């Protein structure tokens, strides 16, 4: 998710090409090409400009609806609704051939990873692994992070591990998806906010990208991998 304001001008994007299976967008206003994964202008008058990331989450509809009862949902576009992807389309894409690979990493190219850039480093977490562990307490560069699986056992969010004192602490995930911190015993919701602790700030969210390993690794050559065997 990107802001589409660049130097005070609002741009409108469309899909206009592909670069090693990550798509290229083009803006109607200047004809500049932008890389989807990085938000960077790769060719054209705005070359090397960078779109600003807007924080977003990937959640189940039920989880989102519970948190945002008055939120609005993108309506299907009538002309194209018959062509929308079937529910299992990601399984199909998961089998498609990749054009680049990193065999030395031993990770399949289509492995779904949660990628985080923080604290001057990049780190990838296998989605499967995170869903198994339900709570991952780790570090990305200098930033202590928490990856938490929601009460639906499907949605995942990432936060900076920061107890009310400002220091990282040990968190525990309870069966209902809430967290408990060992410093104060405060309960935290899956949205990262304290339950009934007035004056305590929510945990700062960490931007996280769900991506195939080949694509993440291609754009983050120095990435480390959570629990990698080397």
């Amino acid at each position, binding site marked *: 998710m990107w802001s589409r304001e660049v130097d005070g001008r609002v741009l409108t994007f469309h899909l206009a090409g592909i670069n090693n299976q990550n798509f290229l967008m083009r803006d109607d206003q200047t004809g500049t090409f932008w890389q989807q994964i990085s938000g960077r202008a790769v060719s054209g008058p705005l070359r090397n400009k960078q779109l600003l990331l807007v924080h977003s989450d990937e959640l189940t509809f039920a989880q989102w609806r519970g948190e945002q009862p008055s939120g*609005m949902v993108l*309506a299907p576009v009538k002309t194209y609704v018959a062509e929308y992807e079937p529910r299992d389309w990601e399984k199909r894409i998961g089998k498609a051939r990749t054009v680049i690979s990193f065999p030395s990493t031993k990770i399949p190219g289509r492995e779904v990873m949660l990628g985080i850039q923080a604290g001057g480093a990049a780190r990838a977490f296998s989605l499967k692994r995170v869903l198994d562990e339900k709570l991952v307490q780790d570090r990305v560069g200098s930033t202590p992070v928490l990856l938490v699986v929601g009460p639906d056992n499907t949605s995942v969010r990432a936060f900076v591990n920061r107890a009310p004192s400002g220091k990282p602490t040990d968190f525990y995930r309870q069966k209902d998806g809430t967290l408990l911190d060992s410093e104060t015993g405060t309960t935290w919701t899956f949205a990262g906010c304290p339950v009934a602790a007035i004056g305590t700030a929510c945990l700062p969210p960490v931007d996280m990208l769900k991506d195939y390993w080949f694509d993440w690794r291609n754009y983050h050559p120095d990435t480390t991998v959570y629990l990698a065997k080397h």
Partner: protein
Amino acid sequence: MKAACRLLGLAVFGTLFFLLFPYWIIQPFRAQGARELAAALVVIRWAPLATGLFAAIAIAAAAIIWPASRWNVRMFVGAGALLAVAAAFLSHVNVFEKMFHPVGAPSFVAASEAGVTADDMVLAVAENRNSHAYPIREMGYHHVVNDWLGTVPIVATY
């Protein structure tokens, strides 16, 4: 005459190069090198102008060759000029833009009217009092949604 023939050949080659080179590089199941991709994107950006110029040259050259030629030469000359003009028109079309349909003016419904299954995934964004969800199944088709979150212009991509 000879010069006009050479010019026609060059112009036809030029239009075809500007039209086809990017498609050759930007194939979905082919790896793209950084330099060749950069070259292809420059070619795409200049193609409408370049192919227009080449097509004009082709027509001018054909007009010089035509009157003094026999029918068999005329056939080649006519076909060449036609090819250049067709390529010039086609360079305005991007196949990717025809295949994929971004959402330019999205409309939204309340969650209760959305008809999305409880365990379907959505891409969610919230700022101040505005909260938008983009069902992944819709995003997997449109890929790009140009939206406003309150007063903030955003683009959702998937």
